[in-house]
């Protein structure tokens, strides 16, 4: 079976500095992968490169998404094909109402896939349902996207978008940071609800606690721009105890 995501020997630079250093990673449908690793290791860089953020130069390797060359696609095309990144730092977009944004995004994706657009009332209904599950105040939907949202609200909003857009590959970049304990459970439940045989997830986190709720199939350590260790979910517990000292400098 073709893997959902296959990364081979990925190298990427930003501002002339090599950040990803021959990274390999394979995610199959239905799998949840956790990526942990020290600050500055390149976790967000990996997520940005997968989403197609400008400013990164790919200097080596390849990325196949369901067998297709992901790096050759424009960011919006990647999204329409089912790649979703929940940002570590979601940005504020003044002047664009959250609901307008959600409608535009969903219908743009549906259109690109040759599906019918969702009517406004249907969309509103779906968004409301999801908002309720994730404990998002419906009032927030009228506000400009992320503007003035608290750190936790922004993360919930990312999760809401993910639930609405139903991607094939979910990349969660520290979605747990900024969430209080209750919110963490709510968001984790939302993410778990998305678990499906055809969907894969990459969960980037610093904390074992998230992985108590979103239980991964595989845990990786990313250090100095590559995956330096891969193990079962128990690896996360081990890392919590030992830290990353043993991996520092390994890939340099």
């Amino acid at each position, binding site marked *: 079976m073709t893997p959902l995501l296959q990364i081979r020997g990925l190298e990427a630079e930003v501002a002339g500095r090599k950040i990803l250093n021959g990274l390999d990673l394979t995610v199959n449908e239905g799998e949840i992968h956790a990526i942990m690793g020290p600050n500055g290791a390149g976790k967000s860089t990996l997520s940005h490169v997968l989403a197609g953020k400008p400013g990164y130069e790919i200097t080596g390797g390849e990325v196949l998404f369901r067998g297709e060359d992901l790096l050759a696609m424009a960011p919006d095309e990647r999204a329409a094909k089912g790649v979703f990144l929940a940002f570590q730092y979601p940005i504020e*977009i003044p*002047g664009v109402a959250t609901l*307008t944004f959600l409608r535009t995004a969903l219908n*743009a*994706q549906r259109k690109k896939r040759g599906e019918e657009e969702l009517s406004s009332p249907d969309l509103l209904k779906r968004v409301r349902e999801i908002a309720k599950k994730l404990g998002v105040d419906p009032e927030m939907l009228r506000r400009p996207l992320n503007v003035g949202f608290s750190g936790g609200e922004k993360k919930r909003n990312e999760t809401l978008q993910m639930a609405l857009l139903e991607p094939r590959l979910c990349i969660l970049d520290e979605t747990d940071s900024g969430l209080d304990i209750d919110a963490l459970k709510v968001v984790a439940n939302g993410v778990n609800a998305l678990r499906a045989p055809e969907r894969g997830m990459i969960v980037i986190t610093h904390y074992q606690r998230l992985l108590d709720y979103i239980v991964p199939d595989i845990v990786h350590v990313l250090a100095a721009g590559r995956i330096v260790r891969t193990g079962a979910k128990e690896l996360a517990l081990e890392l919590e105890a030992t830290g990353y000292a043993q991996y520092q400098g390994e890939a340099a």
Partner: protein
Amino acid sequence: MNVHARPAKTAAELALAGVYRDARSALPGGTAVAAQRNAAFEAFSGTGLPGSRLESWKYTDLRRLMADALPLAPPPDAATRAAQAKTSGGPLAGLGLRRLVIIDGALDLAHSDLADLEPGLAVRAMAEVLASDEPLLTLGGSASVTNPTLALNAALAADGVVLSIAPGAVIARPIHLAFVNTGARVAAYTRSRVVVGADAMVALVESHEGPDGAQYQVNTALELVVGDGARVDHVKVTREGNAALHVGALLAEVGARTSFTTLGFTVGGALIRNDLAIRLAGEATVAAIRGVSLLAGTQHADTSLTVDHAAPGGQSRELFKTVVDDRARAVFQGRINVRQPAQQTDAKMMVRALLLSDDARADSKPELEIFADDVQCGHGSTVGPMDEQLKFYLLARGIPEQQAKALLIQAFAAEAVETVAHEGLREVLSDATARWVQER
């Protein structure tokens, strides 16, 4: 040799002298008004067309840009008037506002909506007011009043609308001054005056429009006197034809404890200059002064603003948003003066220009001049291309590039457009922005 000799008159300046000479005897007014016109034209002759030597016209060298001065438009014929009466104001016409139509510089009372005038609202033609030899009111105090183009307006204004709103009157239906230009190679000079009594309430919309491809010139001024405790919302939509020259002025004198808002929405015209001189003369007045300009092609649009805080406890917010595409050029000059008595003034000016092409240009010059010591004032200005981070966020959610840009341009303008209190008007302006974005 006289070293102070003015440069030789330009073709347009010579033509203006001819225009004034030919029109003078037919312009409305008795001896007092005629004397005022002569004095105004003389003042204009002394300075000539404003150009880059004048600080206030530094970025808009009208002397160079105005190649010719066109004769006054003849009065529109009946067929033109009837036709224009239906369409003038464009999408604004559908809002049920009280529309007063000014065609080629002449107020057309027959085609204006004068039905069921609210008590306390009086509408007159400026031509009639001038004919009765009431002098043109020219508000003092602001530097812009000595503007050469305003002097020209005083000399040549033939008509306009004069509104008076009695103290305490609440005018429920917004009043729409629909200025329409139909001709080519003609000019329209209009002067309007609105006096709002104490504690009265009114919303006022001006729209200025004309055919694309026609070279015509507009010089229009609105004097606004706002009494104490009044509430006035003003919107000016400049959507002249793409070959038009539009020079406009808003001169406002605002009383104590009033709420005053104005929004300039500029999309049309080849060369546009809007002067705003707003004096907050009374204490504790709250003013919001905003503008949105959407410029493309080779348009040049200049907004020059002076806000005078003359009394204590006033608050003003200035917000100007400009989107510049192609080879267009935007100019913003804004000065907030806080006079010595105006303690506890709270004034904040923000000017932002979004450049959509490498050849687009925006100049902005916000200034503060403060003579009071207990004030809170600030200004900021940004000019730059679209934020790639914002755009990427939208792309990452599957929104295609063109649509993402359109959304962000609209969002950029929305900050100002969405402040319009009247819902229908807000929608019309928001739709106009969307249309502009789609057509670019």
